[in-house]
């Protein structure tokens, strides 16, 4: 296949116009020693029909969540995606556009981001949201970085190890900058050790971090930690799951200064881990410090309501090495999917979905316990829990033999997640396979 439209005769004409005889002459400024001598060692190009066959073949070699019930969660969830959303995302005015730097021809995109920001503020209860970040983990790292760089020398980031282990890996990599010192506080029985975290808080603490629900699906009681970190003039940062916010206390209600999270459950396909979106929302006082793009409302010369990328003095293309973050491209189309999702399910729908997830999880717990199994942790959870099994890998293999994509493997347990897509029959089958020793 080729996507360059000019045939050889036109190429010749264009070369002639600019006074050249061959395409090679366009590269006379590159020394022969650094040129590719014989062409790249890649296979020949393929036509569209061949490509279709190849991609279908590759896709068919995978076990997918559309044909198999999936009980995997651990940070990525198999929620239902409305058909209208999938269709609308293919409007190519959206997906083939660049970042809306030219407001006069990008009002639709700017308005969609403004609506997304508003919805994230509503969900989290926070005052201000950016246009999105790469994902939940990198959004958390940026939040901690912001807490440090805006605190005049404080570097200590106190975080429970009940936060998603990949988020912790990301935090560690970002701390290579030297601006953050991560203090990891071991959890107890699947929950954050709040007392131990509080004892770590001091006048060098930039922030304390809690994930809600935590990596194991458990609800963390963050009240005392929030008080302690605020008494020491540090920030309280929460990583939250967006669907759960229909039922659970919002980050604002917990007193968070910054709320971040993985936005994938809001209308984005699993896609082997990406593209997803990170949401990032904060208190008003941080508006001029938060990373990423922000859309603001203004008016045009005729006084007509209009939207524009704003507060750009924070960003890399203006401030260069003094910018708080280097982010430019974010996950705009995934954010658009998220705001479409919230529109198509609506508030009642989101509450129904959250309640359904919780209800299915409780039912599964009940059935598994009846089959003689035991929860690894006993604390309240939302849509995900760990169930003890002797050999998690073997249990997953057995589930797969029965057409089920099983859970996330801990040492002595499987973490199982329940979305509104799961049915009673699927859970009964899960129980039969896992419980049938």
């Amino acid at each position, binding site marked *: 296949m080729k996507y360059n439209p000019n045939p050889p005769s036109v190429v010749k004409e264009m070369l002639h116009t600019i006074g050249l005889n061959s395409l090679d002459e366009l590269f006379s400024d590159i020394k022969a020693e*650094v040129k590719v001598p014989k062409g790249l060692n*890649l296979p020949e190009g393929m036509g569209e029909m061949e490509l279709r066959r190849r991609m279908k073949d590759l896709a068919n070699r995978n076990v997918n969540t559309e044909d198999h019930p999936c009980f995997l969660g651990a940070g990525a969830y198999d929620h239902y995606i409305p058909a209208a959303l999938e269709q609308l995302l293919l409007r190519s005015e959206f997906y083939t556009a660049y970042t809306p730097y030219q407001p006069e021809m990008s009002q639709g995109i700017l308005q969609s981001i403004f609506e997304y920001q508003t919805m994230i503020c509503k969900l989290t209860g926070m005052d201000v949201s950016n246009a999105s970040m790469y994902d939940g983990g990198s959004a958390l790292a940026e939040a901690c970085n912001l807490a440090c760089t805006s605190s005049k020398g404080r570097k200590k980031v106190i975080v429970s190890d009940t936060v998603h282990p990949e988020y912790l890996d990301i935090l560690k990599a970002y701390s290579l900058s030297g601006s953050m010192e991560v203090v990891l506080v071991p959890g107890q029985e699947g929950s954050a050790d709040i007392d131990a975290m509080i004892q770590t808080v001091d006048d060098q603490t930039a922030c304390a971090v809690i994930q809600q629900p935590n990596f194991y699906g458990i609800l963390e009681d963050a009240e005392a930690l929030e008080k302690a970190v605020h008494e020491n003039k540090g920030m309280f940062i929460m990583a939250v799951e967006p669907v759960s916010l229909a039922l659970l206390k919002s980050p604002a209600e917990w007193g968070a200064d910054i709320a971040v999270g993985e936005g994938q459950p809001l209308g984005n396909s699993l896609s082997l881990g990406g593209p997803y979106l990170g949401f990032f929302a904060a208190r008003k006082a941080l508006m001029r410090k938060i990373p990423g793009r922000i859309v603001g409302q203004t008016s045009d010369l005729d006084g007509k309501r209009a939207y524009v990328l704003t507060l750009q003095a924070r960003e890399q293309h203006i401030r260069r090495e003094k910018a708080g973050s280097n982010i430019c491209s974010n996950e705009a189309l995934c954010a658009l999917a998220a705001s479409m999702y919230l529109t198509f399910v609506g508030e009642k729908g989101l509450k129904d979905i959250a309640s359904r997830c919780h209800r299915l999880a409780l039912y599964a717990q009940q059935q598994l316990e009846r089959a003689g199994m035991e929860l690894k942790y006993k604390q309240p959870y939302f849509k995900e829990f760990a169930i003890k099994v002797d050999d998690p890998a073997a249990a997953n293999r057995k589930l797969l033999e029965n057409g089920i994509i099983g859970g996330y493997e801990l040492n002595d347990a499987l973490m199982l997640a329940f979305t509104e897509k799961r049915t009673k029959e699927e859970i009964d089958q899960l129980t039969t396979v896992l419980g049938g020793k």
Partner: protein
Amino acid sequence: MSKLIFEKHVPDSNPFTLPPLAIPAVKPDSIPQQFLREQKIALPEVSEVEAVRHFTELSTRAYGVDSGFYPLGSCTMKYNPKINEWAARLPGLAGLHPYQAEDTIQGALQIYYEMQEMLAEITGMDGFSLQPAAGAHGEMVGVMTIKAYHHNRQDYQRTKMMVPDSAHGTNPATANMVGFDVIEVKSNHRGLVDLDDLRAKMNDQVAGLMLTNPNTLGLFEEEIQEIAAIVHEGGGLLYYDGANLNGIIGIARPGDMGFDVLHVNLHKTFGTPHGAGGPGSGPVGVKSKLLDFLPKPVVIKKDDAYGFDYDMPLSIGKVKNFYGNFGVMVKAYVYIKALGAEGIKEICEHAVLNANYLRHQLRDDYNIPLDRLCKHEFVANSKKQADQNGISTMDIAKRLIDYGYHPPTVYFPLIVSEAIMIEPTETESKERLDDFVQAMRSIAREAAEEPELVINAPHNAAIRRVDEVTAARKPVVKWEAP
């Protein structure tokens, strides 16, 4: 005035329902009170048809590559082939959970592995991580590997990173984010790195140089081997910003020029859509001496099976959950497979031809400060128009909107005042380019004869110019119920 979705709220109009479920109701205390939400959410309630019309209407006030010509310099707004979109949405690729067992995702891992291999061949590097989600994210990973490399050699004194004055803003921002002090290297009168300045600034406190080649003026750094020698002899490493890879792809490879680490933008060079600001993908390639520091995991092939390798004790860790933007990789994979070796060389040849053709056709009407053979893009400015009637680059950009074009990148690079940076890409036909030239010539004429027309542009857009000052001074960044 276009209503916001919140202004279309009709109580009880949303039809979304879940299927019936025959299991017991939840006990009221299954989630204790202290965890439950009291605050209202207040999402809009809209019927399906009105929601569909809402988003469809928004799309009509947007402009993509499918809408028309998009000569946005340094952004490589090329055509996004439709077969790629189809492939990424196959349930066997879009419906994979990242924690599935390796033996249930062999097809996906093969795509991942082949992408690592193909990108290594195209760029002349020894290994790749596909984890970064965007170009700036890739830059960060690349600069982190440089830091990790020096630290691993017990060399802790290299606290500075060199960046040319023509660099993208992400370069200095990235260096700062990874904890380096930035040293700016000057450009010479030919728009290339000033070798004397580079020599003077290279020392044992400098970790490396971040370089774009072709640079942001669209010019190839002809002395690249000498630049590499200066940096390497000083103990530093050379970073390649892949934003402009379209200008050399298939013709020359950064790995053969002496670069040690680089990122590429799948959403620029490899035809994946920009999505109005992401998702992108910024894979990072390294020479063998940096392989150990790449983010984990990488995908390896063992006895005809593919798997993740987490056994990387010197790895910088992770910068993103899971393995990167897989959906974007699928599209780029189909793109490379479609083009093959010959097709990839041809995209470069045609991209460079189109840029030189436009430069040639516009030189009579617009000032082009460095008017010589360019690669995939070139930089003009509004000097002629400013001298005549005080017309600015912004005025010209806004007037182009009236002619139905997305404006070029403006006011960048910073080393050219009132810059107009034009990158046509290889997917524009001569007719399109000629029409664009006509539009630019008309605007030049208007600037001379009817300057008001240009200064007050756009006239035909959805809105006129916006009040950016008030937007920044009194920010309104979300809708509030009246």
